[in-house]
């Protein structure tokens, strides 16, 4: 066994997995409450990456940041998260709320419209060229290691902040009043509204949180992998959706687990399987099918109980 390869793959899988997990969280939270697949979510993530870039450049750019690198990174995250959160709320308000009682498939197309709109607005406003975060200049190319395990700073940052955000989210959902309201609403929207919960507000906050996480994921991704462009949300959205389903759509810990699992699966498939990178998507989807066949409602999802 080549342990060095194994650890390399694990680290890369965990990094990517953290990003997927954060995207999947947005999918799963919205699904949990509205039973809606928000296909525009990947594009919110793209906008997040751009917002991070703008924040970085307003703060003087990667080469000569006007504050210490760590502060800049924190501000980038904050700006991207707030901007995306706001965007999420606006999308919900104008594209989904009017469709709340429509057939389930209608908001899907509305989401698609939003996705077209965001993608091409980004193309129009930000241009077609790739933009570079130049992370090396910002936080250096330093690599930490413990024996065979190598971790670059951005990787470390990604994994740690993803874990932090997930813990924060879990606490929020489990402990706070709004978290309780969210759980109640996802359990039974009508009943919740009869119990005096302001369902509109709960849904809006869900969108805010989910989209803010996507924004954070966008910044993280760009910090580790460098380039951003208008079309980057498409693939990430697809992967996030996959992760959410693997984990059991609607389940918050499931999304985290699913994200990490998809990330690791991609990484190991690339590293260990024949033509792994070429057939990466196939391998990952095969895993997904396997999981669905064994646990039809995802790893941590609850099976729907149908009353006859």
């Amino acid at each position, binding site marked *: 066994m080549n342990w060095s*390869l194994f650890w*390399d*793959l694990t*680290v*890369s*899988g965990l*990094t*990517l997995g953290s990003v997927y997990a954060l995207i999947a969280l947005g999918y799963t939270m919205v699904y949990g409450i509205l039973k809606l697949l928000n296909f525009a979510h990947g594009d919110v993530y793209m906008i997040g990456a751009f917002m991070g870039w703008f924040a970085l450049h307003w703060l003087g750019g990667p080469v000569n940041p006007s504050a210490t690198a760590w502060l800049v990174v924190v501000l980038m995250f904050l700006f991207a998260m707030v901007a995306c959160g706001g965007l999420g709320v606006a999308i919900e308000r104008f594209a989904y709320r009017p469709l709340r009682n429509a057939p389930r498939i209608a908001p899907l197309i509305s989401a698609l419209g939003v996705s077209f709109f965001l993608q*091409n607005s980004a*193309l129009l406003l930000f*241009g*077609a*060229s*790739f933009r*570079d975060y130049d992370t*090396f200049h910002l936080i250096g*190319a330093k*690599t930490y290691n413990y024996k065979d395990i*190598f971790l*670059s700073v951005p*990787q470390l940052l990604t994994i740690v902040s993803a874990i932090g955000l997930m813990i924060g989210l879990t606490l929020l959902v489990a402990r706070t009043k709004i978290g309780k309201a969210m759980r109640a609403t996802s359990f039974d929207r009508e009943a919740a509204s009869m119990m005096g919960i302001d369902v509109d507000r709960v849904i809006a906050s869900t969108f805010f949180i989910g989209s803010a996480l996507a924004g954070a994921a966008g910044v993280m*991704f760009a910090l*580790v*992998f*460098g*380039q951003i*462009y*208008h*079309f*980057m949300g*498409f*693939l990430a959205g697809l992967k996030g959706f996959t992760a959410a389903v693997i984990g059991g759509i609607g389940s918050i810990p499931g999304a985290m687990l699913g994200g990490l699992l998809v990330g690791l699966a*991609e*990484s*190991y498939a*690339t*590293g260990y399987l024949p*033509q*792994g*990178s*070429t057939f*990466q*998507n196939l391998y990952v989807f095969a895993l997904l099918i396997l999981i669905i066949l064994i646990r039809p409602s995802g790893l941590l999802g609850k099976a729907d109980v149908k009353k006859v």
Partner: protein
Amino acid sequence: MRRRATAIAAVLALAALAIVAAASAKVDRAAAPSATASADRQLVSCGKTVTMGMLAPITGPAASLGKLQTDWAKFYVAAHNKVKKNKHKLRVQFGDTVLGGPGGTAEAVKAAQSLGSNVLGTIGPAGSNEVRATTATLKNAGLAFVSGSATNTELTTDGTRTNFFFRTVPPDSAQGTSVANFIDKKLKFKRVYIIDDQEAYSTGLADTVQQKLRAAGVTVSRDGVSQQQSDFSSLIAKIPRDTQLVYLPWQLPPKGKAFGDQMRSAGKGSIILMGSDGLFDDAFASLGGVYASSFPTSGTHPVVKAFRKAHGGDAEFFGAPSYVAAQVVGGAIDRACKDGKASRAEVRAQVRKTNLKKTVLGLNVRFNAQGDIRGGQFGIWKATSAGTFLPVG
């Protein structure tokens, strides 16, 4: 009851009819391109402005490539229109082929079909499969189409497009041979890793290089990675540390740069990277020490200098062949318009006769019977630590 319904349906039908009729009333039917052989002999008065088409990916995942190409083409047109002695100004009608987008190659065909009847010749399309899909349309319309990036070898050798299709980049076979020879003979490397980007351009090139290298006894590993991905770390982890060179026949320089950065942060920065012409760009060169194959262009060419200056210091080399393509089409139109009128057939004949000296590609551009550049060769370039490519072979 039933009668009323039928009446309503009839009214509906009439209304729809009226809309269609109104919508198409203004169509200039006489000038419509059609399949009849005479259409391409139709004379268009050149007047003050003449129009050429350009098919490029303006939206969609490959929009960044389209931008490089259109930037260069526009640069040519602007330069052309500034020259006083040119009797007429050039105008470009762009068509968005949405390469890699939702509509597939049908979008490219739609873009080709949208070219107006006043278009005399066209630049593009960018991708080899787009060239294949639009061939019937462009041939039927009698248009010459000159691509600056479709490198698939068979496009010219299969004989379907002769006298219609031309390209200002050498085909994969030429590039692949130069690259394989350089790795084998000059660098004398024995362990090479090839990663294609799963698109027609890339796999063709990778196949050629792989085949030639294997024949020369070099150990070649092969993998592929999607254009839409930015995470290469797991792929990098898989590359053996004793690999001497990784060959990346890719089209997106930023991705090449990301790959290099990720190689470095994985502690494999000592492995040499080599890109194809698609990566011949400042972004990739900024990694330093990397190789790329390209036409023997030079940064000191006045046009390149001027372009660089106009575009914030970025030479966007990937688009340079589209400049030449614009030069080819524009020049052909100019010559065909000498008598004040031109037809598409004339323009085609003039494209065929193109003879450009010292183009930005560093080549003289003349076409052979199949539509390829005569003597079109690729040179190999190496980036200095400061990030500029210098010719090494």
